[in-house]
């Protein structure tokens, strides 16, 4: 299961929620834990093992299958992530099974070389001095082995050979430790068969997966992409000493960046995994300074607003748990810190009055200066502050933050209107690479829709080319897999669902066969270099894009259903359950039959806007209390649960 991998090098990943290590797989054929790499080479009657492709053994599996078919044999590698407990942490063992099935024309003479090397395509971060174990196919004296193969050998190269009769399989099992710390667990893992490991891993993932929402759209590619993206989101977490934390990527930057983590938390929350979202959001409070700012990386001043926003995202969507007092206190201190910064800017730098101070993120915008992202995310943080204060019954606090929010929005709006062309800049103080301004409407709400339209906000994803729907970063050849996703989501409220559909298609296309999206890649060479997939923010962007298309609660006080859909979802009949919205959990089903479109959804205490199937317009509304909003939309009153409408082609 899995679509064709479009990248120059085909890759996959063995990851598991909460595990502190992961395995990177690359065609053909190697497996690495960031400390060492195991490379497979083989022949069947002299024919080399060919290049293959990755996928999942079945839909919804957390395991990986690689398969290559030559003239004389079919080669298969099954890879299973096996979590093992090491002290308070979860580490990972990879259970690998290499299978060779000779074709009828073959004599079945198989040779396999499994070679270890201490080079790796990424480096696993290690606290202090790395623990180094000898790398060999024979267990070293008094030390645990890092790898176990079907035979032993002195040194790093293991030669295996067999004569396989026709109709039979050659089968070899390997176990790899994700880190030196879990090497002692290999011997125990060896007692469980590979098939049993596979069954347990898939069962464990399915149990975890059940916490999140389900979609049934009659579109297997999208449904598999959802499963893969959820695995990436939950797999880009690690539990250390009992504490769960988000990581941006399981490989080359296995660390927390608030810029990524806030997206990850929001996506998990939107997809109903509120338990993980809450724990991850609380973990971000570790970044708080005594002054009240919250930064994971020095100079990224947007972090404070992002954490305030992420806390609200995690605790506001149909969540029964109350925001802990410590988190509310952090939000208040964050607001105080930001207001103090803005006050100092007013006093010392009147030309930037009303804004946050200059930031130097050494990332994304790539320049120091007064960055729009700092202001946009601070605004999002203030909105979150108002929301959590209201829910906590602290009306005076909500009023105070709300007053600052209105003044802040006014300051931004005035500045934008004073700019020639009314554009929204990446930096107020000069040029910078596109970043924070792309989040100006969704999700930060730093500008009004009218300002976004006046600024031509969607231009970056409107290119009339094969990359339409994705944004480029820096070079026109560098496509970014999630940079344009906020624009595509904003397009839903700017009546440009065509851009949303284009973004969804591109994001589905530019993924590995097991659903991992890199952050950036070259459109011409299809290479992502050392920035290896999967990327948590890319997975989050895909899930949020899809979720907000089906059930939109990102902006405003109206629930919007089916704002972004594909025609075939209507004819197949679409259903989703378990989406967490700001007005409670929402299940939705929708379908079109002949000229009739209908929706059934969970009642909410606000108005619901329904959008018709693509390329159709409303002929006649059916149902009490429904109102038209233009030719494409209906409005249903609070508490409504069903609507039908007769449509005609646009």
């Amino acid at each position, binding site marked *: 299961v899995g679509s064709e991998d479009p990248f120059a090098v085909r890759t996959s990943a063995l990851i598991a929620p909460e595990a502190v290590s992961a395995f990177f797989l690359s065609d053909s054929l190697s497996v690495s834990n960031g400390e060492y790499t195991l490379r497979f080479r083989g022949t069947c009657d002299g024919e080399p093992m060919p290049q293959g492709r990755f996928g999942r053994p079945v839909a919804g599996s957390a395991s990986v299958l690689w398969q290559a078919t030559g003239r004389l044999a079919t080669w298969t590698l099954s890879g299973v992530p096996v979590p093992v407990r090491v002290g308070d942490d979860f580490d990972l063992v990879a259970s690998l099974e290499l299978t060779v099935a000779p074709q009828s024309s073959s004599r079945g003479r198989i040779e396999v070389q499994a070679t270890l090397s201490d080079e790796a395509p990424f480096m696993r*971060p290690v606290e202090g001095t790395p623990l180094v174990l000898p790398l060999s196919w024979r267990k070293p004296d008094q030390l645990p082995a890092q790898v176990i193969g079907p035979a032993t050998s002195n040194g790093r190269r293991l030669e295996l050979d067999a004569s396989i009769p026709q109709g039979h399989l050659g089968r070899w099992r390997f176990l790899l430790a994700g880190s030196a710390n879990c090497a002692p667990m290999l011997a125990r893992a060896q007692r469980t068969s590979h098939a049993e490991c596979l069954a347990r891993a898939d069962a464990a993932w399915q149990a975890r997966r059940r916490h999140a929402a389900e979609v049934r759209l009659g579109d297997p590619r999208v449904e598999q992409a959802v499963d893969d993206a959820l695995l990436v989101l939950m797999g880009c977490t690690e539990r250390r000493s009992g504490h769960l934390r988000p990581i941006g990527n399981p490989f080359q930057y296995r660390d927390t960046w608030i810029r990524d983590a806030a997206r990850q938390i929001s996506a998990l929350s939107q997809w109903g995994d509120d338990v993980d979202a809450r724990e991850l959001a609380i973990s971000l409070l570790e970044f708080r300074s005594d002054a009240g700012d919250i930064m994971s*990386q020095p100079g990224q001043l947007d972090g404070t607003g992002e954490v305030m926003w992420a806390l609200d995202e995690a605790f506001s969507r149909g969540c029964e748990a109350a925001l802990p007092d410590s988190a509310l206190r952090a939000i208040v201190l964050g607001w105080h810190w930001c207001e103090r910064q803005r006050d100092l800017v007013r006093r010392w*730098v009147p030309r930037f009055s009303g804004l946050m101070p200059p930031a130097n993120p050494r990332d994304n915008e790539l320049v120091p200066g007064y960055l729009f992202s700092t202001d946009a995310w601070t605004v999002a943080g203030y909105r979150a502050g108002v929301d959590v204060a209201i829910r906590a019954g602290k009306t005076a606090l909500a009023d105070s933050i709300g007053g600052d929010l209105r003044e802040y929005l006014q300051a931004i709006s005035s500045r934008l209107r004073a700019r020639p062309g009314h554009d929204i800049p990446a930096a107020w103080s000069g040029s910078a690479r596109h970043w924070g301004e792309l989040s100006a409407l969704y999700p930060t709400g730093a500008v009004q829709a009218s300002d976004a339209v006046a600024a031509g906000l969607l231009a970056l994803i409107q290119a009339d080319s094969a990359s339409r729907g994705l944004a480029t970063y820096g070079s026109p050849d560098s496509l970014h897999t999630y940079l344009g996703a906020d624009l595509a989501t904003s397009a839903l409220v700017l009546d440009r669902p065509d851009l949303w559909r284009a973004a969804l298609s591109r994001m589905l296309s530019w993924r590995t066969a097991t659903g991992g999206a890199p952050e950036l890649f070259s459109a011409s060479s299809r290479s992502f270099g050392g920035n290896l997939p999967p990327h948590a923010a890319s997975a989050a962007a895909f899930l949020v894009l899809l979720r907000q298309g089906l059930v939109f609660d990102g902006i405003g006080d109206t629930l919007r259903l089916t704002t972004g859909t594909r025609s075939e979802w209507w004819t197949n009949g679409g259903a989703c359950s378990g989406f967490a919205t700001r007005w409670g959990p929402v299940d939705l089903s929708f379908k079109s039959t002949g000229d009739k479109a209908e929706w059934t959804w969970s009642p909410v205490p606000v108005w619901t806007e329904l959008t018709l199937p693509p390329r159709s317009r409303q002929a006649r509304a059916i149902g009490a209390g429904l109102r038209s909003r233009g030719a494409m939309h209906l409005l249903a009153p609070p508490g409504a649960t069903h609507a039908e409408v007769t449509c005609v082609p646009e």
Partner: protein
Amino acid sequence: VRSRVIAVVCALYSIMSGAGCRATTSSSLATPFATVPGPTGNPAVDYARALQLQRSGQHLASVPFFRSVSRASPRDGGLHLDYGVALHNESIQTDVTRGAVRFVVPCSDERARLRRESLVELRTAIALAATDEDRAYAWSVDSRLLEIMGRPLEAREALERALVIRPDEPALLDAYARLNRTLYVRADLAAQRAALAGAHTRAGDSRTSHWPVP
């Protein structure tokens, strides 16, 4: 005191230059059973060891020694300053392992904790400073750390406190001009200098010069 001043100056230079990047190859990695001797409990010995480690860019290793010395003399502001700088340097120390640059403290939340603790130590150093000179210097270090942490406004505030005490110090004025550029402050430096000089209360002695030659 002299050696401590030199150490702090060295540390500041290493902060400015990115906290020293050491190369480690797989052949030089420690065995699983290798151990590094910790503090002895003798403040003089531990302090000498801390300085030696700091000068060689091994901030991670120096921190336990600075911590030990600082706890042995909790009223010595200079030791808190040393310890604070060491904590900060640990948060930005990198090395090269298998050809890749890495933070020696790999988790960003742990690095944030080090940054937080470093500022606490700096504020303790400021509160315990024995002389105006020491206090001005501690404020200037506090300012530099805040600047590196990406908090330029608070860095400027801290630097102004140092300038109130030492309005003519060239190193402080250079840093002030740099922060003004970062913040896009259109400053009339002469006027600001005069204002700061007016606020200066000349109390305490100034026997030791901390300031590097600009």
